[in-house]
């Protein structure tokens, strides 16, 4: 399918210049830029941006006018990227395209607000944290999105061999009891980074 309407993704001037520079370097005709959502997970949304040749387009791809080059996307990516912007960033340590996508804002990137969020936070403060504090642990609310609660464990809970039990048999039951509309609880803790776990797994 071909649709030369305006791209749902906006390239900054710097990003446009960079795309055109990469195309010039390849020195071929008919090049386009493919933008793909490689992972839509709110835990770690990832994107792939690549220069492709004309015969790398598929029949189901949608093709947009990127104001100087063609932008090619799979239909699902086009939906998820509607309203996103792409910039080119260069720092001392890295350079690359950076995607700002309001549809897939990483968890914890928006202010925590709303009635359900308040009730979850209250349940954590009132019931969960006084309990886990006995083992030097604490639980932080990271996000509430689509009735899924994202939490992070710290202190003695981070890296603890029994963290999954504390989550499924304690925290989750308490939160579901206090806020019945919760549909799931995700632990986004980096347990490998725990410096002082209450129990060390060893068997």
């Amino acid at each position: 399918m071909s649709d030369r309407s305006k791209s749902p993704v906006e390239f900054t001037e710097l990003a446009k210049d960079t795309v055109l520079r990469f195309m010039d370097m390849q020195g071929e005709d008919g090049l386009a830029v493919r933008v793909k959502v490689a992972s839509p997970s709110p835990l770690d949304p990832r994107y792939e941006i690549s220069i492709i040749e004309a015969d790398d387009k598929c029949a189901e791809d949608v093709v947009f006018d990127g104001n100087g080059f063609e932008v090619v996307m799979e239909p699902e990516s086009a939906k998820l990227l509607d309203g996103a912007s792409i910039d080119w960033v260069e720092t001392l340590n890295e350079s690359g395209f950076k995607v700002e996508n309001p549809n897939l804002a990483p968890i914890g990137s928006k202010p925590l607000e709303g009635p359900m969020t308040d009730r979850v936070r209250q349940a954590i403060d009132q019931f969960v944290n006084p309990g886990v504090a006995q083992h030097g642990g604490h639980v932080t609310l990271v996000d509430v999105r689509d009735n899924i609660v994202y939490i992070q464990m710290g202190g003695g809970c981070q890296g603890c061999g029994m963290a999954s039990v504390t989550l499924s048999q304690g925290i989750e039951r308490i939160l579901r009891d206090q806020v019945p509309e919760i549909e799931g609880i995700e632990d986004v803790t980096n347990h490998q980074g725990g410096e002082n776990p209450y129990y060390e797994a060893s068997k």
Partner: protein
Amino acid sequence: MSRILLLFSRASYRAEAFVAAARRMDIEVTVGSNHASILAGLAPGATLTLGVTDVHRSAATIGRFAADYPLAAIVTAEDDFAPVASEASEALGLRYHGSEAVRSARNKALMRQLLSADGMQSPWFHVASVEDHPTTFAAEAAYPCVLKPLALSASRGVIRADTPEEFSLAWTRILDILEQRDASRRSGGARDEILIEEYLPGLEVALEGIVVEGELRTLAILDKPDPMEGPFFEETILVTPSRLPDDVRTEIVSTVQRAVSVLGLLDGPIHAELRVDGEQLSILEIAPRSIGGRCSTILRFEPEATLEDLILRHALGLPIHEYACVPDAAGVMMLPIPRAGVLREVGGTETALRVPGVEGLEIAIPVGQKVMPLPEGNRYLGFLFAGGKTPARVEAALREAHAKLEVIIEPEA
């Protein structure tokens, strides 16, 4: 809704996989552990605190709990809780190995006695008390031999001795290990015996299975391609399917089935380890539990299921005969700790993950913690997972990825 009691020690790697399996089956879960849940009062029925050593008391606690929360099954992930699981299951009429069989399987000396009495190939052995003086045993032992503290698991404290001098050094080293706080706690004070047995040459293999009404259902045979010749017996790579010839694999299955029958193991998972030396097969261990650590991750079944799914299905009386291990090869490397000290960094992880066939890497010890290799240590640095078309490719991928890791351990200040 059915309720299952899952028993884990507080050092378990297995809780997450079993709880996830129970959720997939939509059954209520109670977790029993020697970890006193700090949220227990706020989530009634979700957890149960149980001791490991006082088996009768813990079984009675489960009995009282079951009066309020009827149980459909009791499943334990580790050896430690197997006696509690068997006694409580017997009292409640639930499906599991009997307590006599569990006692026989867990006690290496008793297991060897029973297998020998039935005419099965078994190394010579002698059980010594830590109160004894090692000189007599050192003089009388045939060499090479292996010393094993009966209270510990996962090759911890297992040392080969080729001479009387090495025997005495190994004995002293084992006594020091048994004095370590966690070893003493894990063994529940029953730290008074050392098994001295013949060193068996040959390849080592593991068999993972579930016993259904006394009949062994073999789920996988796993090769251990690294030589296990001592002086310490650190497990590293496990790969399935086994590359041993068909007739040897058939013999492994029939040997384990015979041992299952001799010991009286009736219903539940078993993990057997054997030595294969030409046509000679000897059982080193047959434990009333499933494979440890994160190793079950590599066992995948068709229709889609994990090892934990099958264990729970069997415990609940659901059929498992239609499940078969997927034909592709898979392997895990239990990453050894190269030296004692403080772990400062594990570099090269991204490079290791890019090795074709490598499917995952988990570093189990946080940076900054003290680490100790075998035979004193009781932890792995982590786990590396790989999959592929053949066992040889999987093994090569694991070795290549391991070589990419840069483990920085500094001496303890």
